[in-house]
């Protein structure tokens, strides 16, 4: 037989590895052909690798070739292998070929590459973990391992694309990569050039279409219903029966909160918002709200928790804002600090401290760190040329200069970048520069500055990262950003500025300079703690006992993951460094960006004027938290999620459970006699609860929210199937069954109220008041599902938790907050790009229309189900199904999604 391969064709990897294993079974000739040669006579398009069999037949599928080699060596086919290979062909390959194309042909990096395959990688990792075997189909390496390994090798051999948190995948991949047939295949195909060896082949391929639905999406990941073992069920039942007794005593509240030896001490920070701006929803979800969920969760676990944040107040922007508003910088800070504090209070953010950076402690600690760095030789001096406005008597920051672009002649180029040609500009190179404030012409002055000698600290940083990163919960984007900074090599960074509003530099000759914010802003966490307690060093100089979690959007990663750690390591004062750096991606607003200047988007202070409760905002923002990929805030989606997930799923379940107790059992939880079905439900809820814990321990906030919603979906189904409202009118046995179902349901509701606490604190408290949940059960969340409302427990008055959001209400909000967006966008786009802007409303229909269609789809769906249940005439069913499909298509169009067209009629 003859194998046809082509230089750099990724399919050669698994095929050669599989051939290597079956070596000696048959004679194999290998021919190399060009990437565009047609080897198989009946295929129109070129395809390699191809195996020509002695019979003359062709195998043109990579997996089929590998399978053939395995079959020749006596292996027998099995279901699990078939399943892996089908998954590889239908799910992994589309995602992977897109990723490889981005990486190799388009030169993209990081999450642009990893984003499309992350779900598939996670799937492999979970499967390996769940079945607890070293290989995909059991204890020994087999066909499935070779095929998947070969497919993944080009990408994963670069450690940047093998996420460390997927540890099961990690060790599976490493094990296979060290096996001899695999090693040889890798050397033959990649020739030590890494993934770039695929270039000659991939360049000739058409661009693969990205896997469906993997773009910016707010849709949940798949929910797989796990299979339960008898043991798991038995354990869930035992835990349930122990009930309230198994709750540990509540930790007493301390003030101030200080680390305690022998306990888990969790220090949580949220990126300090810059004082002169009102935060928008993206800022809120990126830091304070995400950190708040984790802080609340941490307290539910009874971990000793301190959550702190504050406003970042120094810098040029504050000085300028002060000039604009005719106030002093201090007055500006005082004014905006209050605005920030109010917003976060409204959003129910549970800070232990919300401080500010303009305090004497800030000066003291910053200067101390600086002195230590200076004394240890980590500070350099150099001269920098800068523009200075003589009339304003100050040096101009880049964005306060305008002038003619030295590249394209555009007249309103900014000091850092030209809006017309997009090139980066060095402010001193601008022609005819103008001070943006007074319009006079600045002059070039040289000025002495101090630099942090990062190259000298690089080795210490790498050592620390090597100890910290493995096994930690740093998000993949944070790891990637730090890795790429290190790969490019660190350079000395200027840490001083010619400003007045800042921390003064304690060095002769630098009296009129201050520290640059990115040197001292992260020190703000320390000074804010120091203002909270004089024992602040027990948190910040205590790396052995303190677990530091820092939350931020990804643009802040270098300061927290690199600059501050370098300063702290250089200062040699045993500082607590970040153990888990949690960075989000970006949140967009309805397909665009939030923009204060254009009045686009919802800002923190406006959210409260919408009439929508803070908890609903929290829920929706957390539901779309940009975790792993960018996401978008959309009014229509918010309405849908409120009405479907909160009202119909969660709210409906909790309300029904409580109502049944009040209506059928006089407000007392009835006796429960668990059947095997109930026990299975207990075990499923327990499993989902465990998942919630696992996810939150890894700070996967958005995914954990889904677990909660899954539990209430289980609960709704349970009620629906068992129909307690009918059984209550039946025989004694029926009534007992109604009691058990109601009792179990209301206990699930109680569990949900606690799980909900980090996400929707007010709603959680409301449910707990309605159910009269005993206090310890409200404040502690264990990993087991307990019966916290035993038979005979009296509940309070039950009332609905959520309100329906109406279309006209949402539509008017959308208009209010999208205000002026259309003209502004057009105006801006006209300047920036030849592509016309699309009005957001052009792509989707009005929400009321969508809602109407959704109702119709539901109605029609019911008709079809009923007909099918009655085993009605086939033609009749078919006709109704056709109607349903048509409605679904209309809905898809209205929602602006590509309709699921029948194959062959794909719209252009």
């Amino acid at each position, binding site marked *: 037989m003859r194998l046809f391969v082509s230089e750099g064709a990724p399919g050669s990897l698994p095929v050669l590895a599989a051939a290597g294993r079956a070596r000696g079974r048959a004679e194999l000739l290998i021919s190399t052909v060009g990437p565009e040669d047609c080897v198989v006579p009946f295929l129109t398009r070129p395809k390699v690798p191809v195996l020509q069999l002695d019979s003359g037949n062709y195998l043109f*599928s990579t997996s089929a070739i590998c399978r053939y080699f395995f079959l020749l060596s006596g292996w027998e086919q099995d279901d699990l292998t078939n399943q892996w290979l089908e998954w590889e062909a239908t799910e992994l390959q589309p995602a992977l070929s897109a990723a490889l194309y981005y990486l190799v042909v388009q030169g993209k990096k990081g999450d642009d590459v990893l984003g499309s395959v992350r779900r598939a990688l996670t799937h492999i990792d979970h499967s390996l973990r769940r079945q607890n075997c070293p290989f995909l189909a059991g204890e020994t390496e087999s066909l499935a391992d070779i095929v998947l390994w070969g497919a993944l090798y080009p990408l994963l051999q670069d450690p940047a694309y093998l996420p460390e948190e997927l540890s099961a995948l990690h060790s599976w991949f490493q094990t296979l990569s060290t096996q001899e047939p695999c090693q040889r295949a890798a050397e033959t195909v990649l020739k030590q050039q890494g993934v770039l060896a695929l270039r000659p082949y991939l360049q000739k391929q058409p661009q693969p279409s990205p896997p469906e639905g993997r773009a910016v999406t707010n849709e949940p990941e*798949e929910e797989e219903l796990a299979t339960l073992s008898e043991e798991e069920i038995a354990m869930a039942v035992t835990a349930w029966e122990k009930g309230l007794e198994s709750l540990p005593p509540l930790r007493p509240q301390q003030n101030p909160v200080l680390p305690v030896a022998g306990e888990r001490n969790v220090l949580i920070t949220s990126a300090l918002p810059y004082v002169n701006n009102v935060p928008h929803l993206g800022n809120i979800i990126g830091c304070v709200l995400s950190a708040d969920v984790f802080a609340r969760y941490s307290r539910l676990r009874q971990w000793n928790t301190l959550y702190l944040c504050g406003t970042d107040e120094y810098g040029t922007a504050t000085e300028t804002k002060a000039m604009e508003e005719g106030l002093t910088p201090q007055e500006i800070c005082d004014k905006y600090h209050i605005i920030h504090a109010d917003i976060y209070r409204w959003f129910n953010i549970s800070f232990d401290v919300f401080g500010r950076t303009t305090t004497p402690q800030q000066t003291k600690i910053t200067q101390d760190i600086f002195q230590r760095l200076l004394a240890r030789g980590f500070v350099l001096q150099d001269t920098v040329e800068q523009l200075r406005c003589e009339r304003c008597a100050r040096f101009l920051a880049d964005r306060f200069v305008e002038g003619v672009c030295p590249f394209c002649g555009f007249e309103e180029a900014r000091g850092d970048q030209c809006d017309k040609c997009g090139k980066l500009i060095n402010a001193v190179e601008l022609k005819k520069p103008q001070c943006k404030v007074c319009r006079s012409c600045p002059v070039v002055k040289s000025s002495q500055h101090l630099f942090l000698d990062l190259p000298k600290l690089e080795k210490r940083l790498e050592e620390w990262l090597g100890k910290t990163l493995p096994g930690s919960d740093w998000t993949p984007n944070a790891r990637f950003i730090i890795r790429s900074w290190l790969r490019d090599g660190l350079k000395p960074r200027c840490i001083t500025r010619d400003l007045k509003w800042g921390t003064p530099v304690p060095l002769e000759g630098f009296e009129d300079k201050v520290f640059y914010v990115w040197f001292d802003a992260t020190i703000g966490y320390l000074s804010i703690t120091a203002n909270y307690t004089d024992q602040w060093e027990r948190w910040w100089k205590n790396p052995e006992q303190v677990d530091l979690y820092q939350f931020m959007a990804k643009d802040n990663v270098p300061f927290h993951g690199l600059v501050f750690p370098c300063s702290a390591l250089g200062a040699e004062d045993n500082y607590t460094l970040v153990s888990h750096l949690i960075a989000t991606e970006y949140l967009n607003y309805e397909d665009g960006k939030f923009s204060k200047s254009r009045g686009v988007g919802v800002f923190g202070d406006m959210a409260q004027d919408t009439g929508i409760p803070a908890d609903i905002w929290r829920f929706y923002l957390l539901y779309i938290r940009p975790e792993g990929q960018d996401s978008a805030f959309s009014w229509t989606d918010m309405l849908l999620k409120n009405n479907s997930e909160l009202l119909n799923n969660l709210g409906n379940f909790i309300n029904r459970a409580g109502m049944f107790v009040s209506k059928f059992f006089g407000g007392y939880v009835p006796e429960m006699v668990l059947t095997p079905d109930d026990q299975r439900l207990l075990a499923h809820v327990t499993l989902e609860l465990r998942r919630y814990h696992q996810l939150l321990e890894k700070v996967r906030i958005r995914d954990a929210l889904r677990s909660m919603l899954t539990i209430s979906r289980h609960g709704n189904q349970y009620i629906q199937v068992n129909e307690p409202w009918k059984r209550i009118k039946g025989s004694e046995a029926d009534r007992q069954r109604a009691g058990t179902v109601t009792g179990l349901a209301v206990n699930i509701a109680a569990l949900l109220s606690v799980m909900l606490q980090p996400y929707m604190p007010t709603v959680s408290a409301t449910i707990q008041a309605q159910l009269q949940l005993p206090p310890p059960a409200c404040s502690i969340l264990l990993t087991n599902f307990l019966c916290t409302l035993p038979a005979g427990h009296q509940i309070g008055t039950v009332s609905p938790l959520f309100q329906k959001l109406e279309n006209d209400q949402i539509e008017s909000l959308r208009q209010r907050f999208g205000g002026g967006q259309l003209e502004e966008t057009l105006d801006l786009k006209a300047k920036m790009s030849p592509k016309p802007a699309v009005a957001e409303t052009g792509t989707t229909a009005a929400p009321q229309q969508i809602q109407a269609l959704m109702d119709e789809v539901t109605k029609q769906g019911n008709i079809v189900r009923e007909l099918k249940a009655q085993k009605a005439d086939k033609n009749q069913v078919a006709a109704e199904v056709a109607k349903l499909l048509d409605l679904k298509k209309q809905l898809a169009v209205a929602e602006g999604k590509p309709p699921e067209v029948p194959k062959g009629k*794909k719209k252009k």
Partner: protein
Amino acid sequence: MAAAAELSLLEKSLGLSKGNKYSAQGERQIPVLQTNNGPSLTGLTTIAAHLVKQANKEYLLGSTAEEKAIVQQWLEYRVTRVDGHSSKNDIHTLLKDLNSYLEDKVYLTGYNFTLADILLYYGLHRFIVSIIVTGIFSVVFRMIFLNLS
């Protein structure tokens, strides 16, 4: 044809009496079968091969190593190419390729009828209209109407 309906049809033609229940996963509605004595199985061709074994008709998966590999190759072709989001152009190419492949064959493996023929037939069923309209795919035509009906 939804995957579940297709699998039920397959059960019937294999002579399996008790009908299995299928759930569907994800936006592509991939079928899932909860088996009695083990974990669930996911994927059309995976479940189909499982049913064939249940019905003791392993010969439908091919008898020799070569046949077995060819059957699986065309099963993969079915779920990746035939079910893929193909444009009219793609379908044209696909039918042309199949036509030329089947030129000198009765079935996909040559002379033996296998699961690959069944599932490819089900998969192509949807294109029947375009086949009639274009009228040139005689062999595919034959496969659909003569051999498999």
